[in-house]
């Protein structure tokens, strides 16, 4: 799952710590999502999108090739 969190953070001048606190997760989780090591739940994806006032699709892009890797 590709994402543009880093871009949106930069646009809103937010650190990973700031964003993590705002949506109620750890900084490590934001980092893991940005590095595509962890796919967030739908709930968390919505919270991130809502925080930046955009739709989920704007931030997260479904990656068909990476799907098989992410399953397990």
């Amino acid at each position, binding site marked *: 799952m590709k994402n543009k969190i880093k871009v949106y953070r930069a646009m809103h001048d937010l*650190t*990973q710590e700031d964003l993590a606190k705002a949506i*109620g*997760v*750890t900084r*490590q*989780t934001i*980092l*893991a999502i*940005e*590095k595509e*090591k*962890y796919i*967030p*739940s739908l*709930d*968390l994806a919505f919270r991130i999108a809502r925080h930046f006032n955009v739709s989920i699709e704007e931030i997260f892009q479904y990656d068909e090739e990476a799907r098989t890797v992410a399953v397990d």
Partner: protein
Amino acid sequence: MKRNTFYLIGGFAAVILLAIFWYSDETHTPLLITIAFLVAVVLLYFMRKRVKDFAEDERAARITEKAALRTLQVFWVLFCAFSIGAIAQILQEPSFPPRELVPVAQRHTPEILHLRSLGYVQLGLLCLTIFLYVGFRLYYARKYGEWETDEE
């Protein structure tokens, strides 16, 4: 309560349990250590709930869930193998003549079920489970970016 205080109390509890284990062994009261262990686990559980700075979000929960599932999958296979072996040994014992009629010296006792061996095997399996869990936890923590570093 802070996390480090909790770990400190956990350490003290382990030392106290060790002392109770020694006392229990010396006085031949195995029930004492069994009850003490259960009480310690319950107390630590409630203390852990009072710790404020345990940060657990969905990624941390996912790591715990995955590690626990994998540990259980490996553990039940090992436990099942051990249990099947034990059952097979029980079945080896002749059903005739009845066990009560056989002189004690000639009774065939399945080795795997010796009380002493059983305790050691259980302890071994328990230790293995802990190692398995820690191993799987490290694996999934790494997989889900626990030690990733960023330029930020």
